[in-house]
């Protein structure tokens, strides 16, 4: 009772804060100076039509490196926690997968993977990018797991893709440091024609590596959950 009362007080306090924020909200009319700089110079300096991508990959590339690192640490911690223990007998899956999912997965999995690859390769031109594309690729693996609960992702391949793309991402940064202006500078490759797929220097390469890394890490997390799920508890 008293606990609910405190919770209500806390929620009401937050609601008051939000209400005062809401009442004082006036939408701004102009960009902040930093955003204005990115808007005016982004196309010439980075060469990517998608300004969000040029901020994520180039101007704030360190953020993205840290983000990928966090995802990697989480994937390793989950792999450590949800390790399959040998001495537990595995229960068979409780029931068969629905036929709709089994049939749909045969048709959809290749299409989903191609869509994911499309999204991360075109990250500098259209909305999307490495993280989104990687997540889409991982949904294909969810579908495979749902269609066939006994399906096991080949860990050796997933780990190889993950390590190679992670090292590749850092190497791209180092190339930028050696050949261009600084760490993760994309201009060591030619900027190309604005709006083409082979443009914006190293951004498509970096975003594809991020996409592969995110996709393999998420598939790894999923397969860890999957491996422990059927364990006798």
């Amino acid at each position: 009772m008293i606990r609910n009362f405190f919770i209500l007080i806390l929620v009401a306090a937050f609601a008051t804060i939000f209400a005062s924020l809401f009442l004082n909200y006036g939408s701004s009319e102009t960009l902040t100076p930093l955003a204005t700089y990115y808007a005016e110079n982004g196309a010439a300096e980075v060469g990517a039509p998608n300004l969000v991508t040029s901020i994520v990959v180039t101007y704030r590339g360190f953020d993205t490196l840290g983000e990928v690192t966090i995802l990697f640490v989480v994937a390793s911690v989950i792999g450590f926690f949800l390790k399959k223990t040998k001495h537990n007998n595995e229960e068979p899956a409780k029931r068969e997968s629905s036929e709709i999912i089994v049939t749909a997965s045969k048709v959809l999995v290749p299409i989903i993977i191609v869509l994911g690859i499309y999204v991360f390769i075109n990250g500098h031109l259209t909305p999307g990018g490495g993280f989104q594309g990687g997540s889409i690729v991982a949904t294909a693996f969810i579908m495979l797991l749902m269609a066939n609960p006994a399906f096991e992702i080949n860990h050796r391949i997933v780990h190889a893709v993950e390590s190679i793309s992670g090292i590749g991402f850092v190497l791209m940064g180092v190339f930028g440091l050696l050949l261009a202006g600084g760490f993760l500078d994309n201009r060591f490759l030619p900027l190309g024609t604005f709006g083409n797929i082979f443009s914006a220097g190293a951004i498509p390469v970096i975003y594809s590596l991020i996409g592969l890394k995110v996709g393999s890490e998420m598939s790894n997390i999923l397969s860890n959950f999957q491996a422990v799920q059927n364990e006798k508890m």
Partner: protein
Amino acid sequence: MAIEIISLITSFVLMLIGLYGLLSDKNIIKIIVGFSLFDTGTHILIVTIGYLKGKTAPILDNAVGLTDVSQKIVDPIPQALVLTAIVIGLAVTALMLAYALKMYQAKKSLNIGDYKTLKW
């Protein structure tokens, strides 16, 4: 109603629902769901802060062109930050679910009240 008002209200309501669920529910899975709702609310709020009336997405296609870009687009920085925040939120959710799974394996219960030893 203007779009920024709608998304502000949505974000505040989502955060309040998430906060209430986070604090009042006893089920670990539902606590995690509340946490995710709070997370989503903050993401919508940050994107809304970067919105400028009548401007378009920060992608320099034919509709925007290359001249006077700063007069035509919304703020790209909050969007880039939210992109980061979504991935971190996903990682945190996955980690919480892994803990929940391990806790369930240890005690066969998802009720937070059964875990007295964790209190300090």
